[in-house]
């Protein structure tokens, strides 16, 4: 069982001045599992994700990828190890086509990017991989459309396609379904169900139905601290979780 741990954090903390955005988080992410992360606003979900992908450096604590300590590395080295991420706020190249968006993501896998002479359009592998990623998320009819001209939901799908095009082994997804229509969401849910058979996925999401349906492991964060990690049923029945989500409302009512 221990061998399938692909990503692990050890008392990970992030402090902004005196504010503890995240405090003493130790988690294990397993291969071929979808690990949901939920919690009220400001619980530190995005901070956690930003540290897992190298964008934020932890104040203290360690991150291990396949047993190797990686928290001090540059963000682009995280990606090269197979840790791919999507952003909460859509982060794509709006001025170029969907295909080109994914081609940027895929190019690194097949050819050197320091070639100053070979045409960017010459490599068929890059193109095929980019098209494949677009088809996976259901954007097959948008391949040659400029990314600024597709709908918001489609841009979220494109964001996911770009991560897939990097061929990661672990996907860090920050609210991939935010702002999507119902049908688009269903499509992504079934896609994630498919993907978790081959990838390890860390999913931060506000849509509780989706996350209960998808998660193999579920972590609840509250106010920067780790409340519980367990199966969906364990979490659902935990009194501390109820308190974190509902307790505050009681206090408000009492006040």
């Amino acid at each position, binding site marked *: 069982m221990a061998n399938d741990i692909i990503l692990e954090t050890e008392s990970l903390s992030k402090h902004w001045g005196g504010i503890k955005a995240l405090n003493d988080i130790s988690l294990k992410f397993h291969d071929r599992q979808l690990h949901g992360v939920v919690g009220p606003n400001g619980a530190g979900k995005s901070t956690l994700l930003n540290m897992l992908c190298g964008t934020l450096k932890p104040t203290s604590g360690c991150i291990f990828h396949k047993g190797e300590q990686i928290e001090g590395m540059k963000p682009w080295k995280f990606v090269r190890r197979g840790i791919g991420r999507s952003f909460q706020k859509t982060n794509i190249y709006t001025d*170029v086509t969907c295909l080109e968006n994914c081609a940027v993501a895929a190019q690194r896998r097949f050819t050197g*990017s320091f070639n*100053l002479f070979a045409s960017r359009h010459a490599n068929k592998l890059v193109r095929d991989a980019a098209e494949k990623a677009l088809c996976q998320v259901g954007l097959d009819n948008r391949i040659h459309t400029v990314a600024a001209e597709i709908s918001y939901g489609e841009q979220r799908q494109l964001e996911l396609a770009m991560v897939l095009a*990097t061929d990661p082994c672990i996907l860090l997804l920050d609210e991939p379904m935010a702002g999507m229509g119902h049908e688009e969401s269903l499509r992504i849910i079934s896609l994630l169900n498919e993907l978790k058979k081959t990838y390890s996925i860390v999913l931060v999401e506000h849509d509780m139905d989706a996350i209960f349906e998808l998660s193999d492991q579920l972590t609840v964060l509250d106010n920067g601290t780790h409340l519980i990690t367990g199966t969906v049923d364990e979490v659902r029945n935990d009194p501390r979780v109820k308190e974190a989500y509902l307790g505050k409302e009681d206090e408000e009512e009492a006040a």
Partner: protein
Amino acid sequence: MIFEKRTERIFLAVFFVIALCIPLFLEDNSFFVGKTTTVMILAVFVMSLDFLVGRVGLVTLGHALFYGLGGYLFVILTPEYEAVNFWIYAIYIMGISALIALVVGIVVLRTSGIYFIMITLAISQMAYYFFFDSLEFGGNDGLFIFMKPETSIFGLNFLNLDNPTHFYYLSLLGVLITLVAIKVILRSRFGRIVEATRLNPERTEALGYNIFAFRLISYVIGSTLAAYAGLLFALQYGYVNPQFMTWEMSGTALVMSILGGMGTIYGAILGTITYEGLQYFFEHMTEDWMLFMGGAIILMVLLLRKGLAGYLEKLLEK
């Protein structure tokens, strides 16, 4: 096809046909041959800046540093009364400029945005005052080139640099090579990541690219091309002085590139010709030419939001 836009192809075809023929009409007017040569050399410089500012996204105000270096390195490295081979020394000087650009780049690229503008400006001003105050490099008067280099390749000699028409064609060749080199690079796999880095650096890094390396290599390429332009300019006039490195020089080139249409590369040629043409026109019309020049530029920037190239594209692209 590295020239993707119709407008681009039409403009460049017209430009090179006219440029090739110019000396035929100006054979006995060496002033105009000299003037057009200068325009060609400046076009190389402005294209290299347009590549950095418009395509890599590095807004530098210190580009003239390398323009001056190209000239100074030639005088410093060559014996005073001996004609050296132009091609060998051009490569030699560009190599050294590339090394200097690498070191400068490693420092300046640690910053971005407004800080990048300030630090590039500061470094080029430091170089300016270094040459301005140095006795061994001629101070404010600069250094003179007593012998123009010879240009034989494998014993064949087509060009005589003392002949203004020959020098003109050498500069025109510089425009062609710079243009093609930049366009090939932009279309390449490297160019794809450079473009991605300009459009969205955060995203590009999150896709696994070391954006610092891509910016650094681009900076070295742009700076090296600028050094080549500076070398040609020094050879044309037979001297180099600290004026080559002033921030006005960087600023003027930036205006030319904006005027032409930032990031279009061929627009840099258009912008240079227009700027130099306007300046010549106003200079001969009135003493207060700077006033008119400023007015004309403000008007053009206001009316043509995407520069002259953008205007041409509106006319010619369907």
